[in-house]
């Protein structure tokens, strides 16, 4: 027991340190986003009311939108609002931004998770297969395929999937989202092609990571020991190899999640999905900057928080990392 106490302390100190830097990162990121959006030319109130608006009307709307207070005060109320889940009021739709984002998240988040699942399901067997046949035809084949997978733009692959599976074979619809109220199956069905196209390049990357992590582990002494004690090559791979190779692989999976969320913005355009991406593009053309600001903050928030979680998980598994900052 005496051994575990300092260990726990170190873990706690490490977590607190990381938590502090998490908050600093979030504060700086939100400040950067706020300042950049503030630079934008034009006043939202006069944009909303058009060219012929009376100055008094514009002033009244500015007051209603909270645009008449000093900038630092607006920044603080924006951040404070977000912390309590209130992103403010959309300039064009006059509805709470939180509601708009929540509705879109029901498409973007399941899409990212779906793609992450597919990417893992493809990458694990492919990486394990390649590592177990190092240098043989199977390995070369898988590695060649991953090279191609990395080089294919996912939105182009999406168009090809639409051409083959939606237009020619008619297995899926070419775009749009059925909605979760039509049932889980209908929703998943309309997210399948987008998820596949989003997952492909990620699966290629992940398979390469899986393979190289496994190959690193296979060279370790304890693997030879495992063989020496009588385990077959297959058993060593599954019982000892995979478990130890999992750490770098899980890190990449964590990082991929935030990437998939952001990458979904482009894929949503191909399939006309009503997700965060479409919301952002509509808001840009309507100059609804508060929505743009909020969605961007949400995406950055996701990356920072996922990185934080990955760091903590990593430190929990590998004690050596706790002493580092």
């Amino acid at each position, binding site marked *: 027991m005496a051994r575990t106490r300092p260990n726990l302390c170190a873990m706690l100190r490490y977590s607190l340190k990381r938590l502090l*830097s998490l908050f*600093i*990162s979030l504060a*700086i*990121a939100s400040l950067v*986003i706020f300042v*950049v*959006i503030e*630079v*934008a*030319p034009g006043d939202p109130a006069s944009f909303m009311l058009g060219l012929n608006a009376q100055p008094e009307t514009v002033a009244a709307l500015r007051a209603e939108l909270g645009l008449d207070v000093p900038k630092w005060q607006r920044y603080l109320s924006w951040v404070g609002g977000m912390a309590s889940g209130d992103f403010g009021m959309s300039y064009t739709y006059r509805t709470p931004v939180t509601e708009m984002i929540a509705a879109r998240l029901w498409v973007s988040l399941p899409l990212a998770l779906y793609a992450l699942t597919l990417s893992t399901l493809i990458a694990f067997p492919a990486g394990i297969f390649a590592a177990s046949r190092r240098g043989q035809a199977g390995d070369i084949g898988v590695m060649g395929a991953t*090279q*191609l997978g*990395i*080089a*294919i*733009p*996912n*939105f*182009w692959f999406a*168009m*090809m999937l*639409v*051409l083959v599976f939606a*237009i020619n074979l008619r297995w899926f619809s070419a775009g749009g989202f059925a909605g979760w109220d039509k049932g889980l199956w209908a929703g998943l069905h309309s997210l399948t092609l987008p998820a596949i196209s989003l997952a492909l390049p990620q699966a290629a*990357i992940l398979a*390469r*990571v899986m393979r190289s992590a496994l190959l690193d582990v296979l060279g370790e002494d304890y693997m030879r020991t495992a063989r020496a004690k009588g385990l077959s090559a297959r058993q060593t791979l599954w019982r000892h190899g995979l478990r130890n190779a999992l750490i770098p692989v899980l890190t*990449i999976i964590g990082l991929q999640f*935030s*990437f998939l969320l*952001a*990458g979904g*913005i*482009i894929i949503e*355009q*191909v399939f006309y999905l009503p997700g965060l*991406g479409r919301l*952002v*593009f509509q*808001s*840009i053309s309507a100059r609804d*900057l508060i929505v*743009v600001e909020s969605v*961007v903050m949400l*995406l*950055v928030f996701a*990356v*920072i928080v996922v*990185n934080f979680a990955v760091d903590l998980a990593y430190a929990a598994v590998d004690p050596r990392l706790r002493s580092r*900052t």
Partner: protein
Amino acid sequence: MKRNLIIGAALSAIVVLAAAMSFVWTPFDHAALNIPAKLQTPGATHLLGTDHFGRDILSMVMVGARTSIAVALVAVSIGMGLGVPLGLWAAARKGSLLDELIMRGNDLIFAFPAIVIAILITAVFGAGAVNAIIAIGIFNVPVFARITRGAALSLWEREFIMAARVAGKSAMRISAEHILPNVMNLLIVQGTIQFSLGILAEAGLSYVGLGAQPPTPSWGRMLADAQTLVSIAPHMALIPGCAIIVTVLGLNLLGDGLRDYLDPRLRVARV
């Protein structure tokens, strides 16, 4: 394993040559509309067919290569130009507040995916190819800063750097005269890989309208135009897509090949 190097260099050379050639000659004027000849499949007159305005696709792909290469090249230069000095500086002051600040700053920039930066810039300043350059460039800074710092840190432990310090050279001179030349190979390899990622990112950004705007031809925009016509004119989507794949594949193979060629011991964490 010189095969990667040769295939990669050949594919990359084809793309660069096509782009260079487009300055002096293209089969047709890439912007010339010819409605009677619209949506032709690849054939004798138009080798790769025509689009919905009757423009020659081969000419457009050649000119589009220029946009892709220019955007990716400038973006990687921005990333290297800022990232490498930052990484060298952080390594020279290892463990100091400055090192910490630079690395934390890197983490922060890492939290902004290129598409998010592009969205921000476009929301404020409007769309344009420059947005793509800046977005991809900013994204590249922490990549180069990290890789430079990592390599430089291990070099600072070496005897020849010790010798330079004993000789009275300043940290800055050591970084410039001894560290930089020794991390150059690594930077060339990473630069090639970032270049290929830049090509992919540029295509994605201009596809969603955050990059090059008409009339500037770009592969991403060609794909956006092709999308609604993909059932009647699949070649409009296939050809620019293949151009992107060939370029990215070529650059990635070139990067792998260069890594093995320049230093077989080099093990870059390449994913």
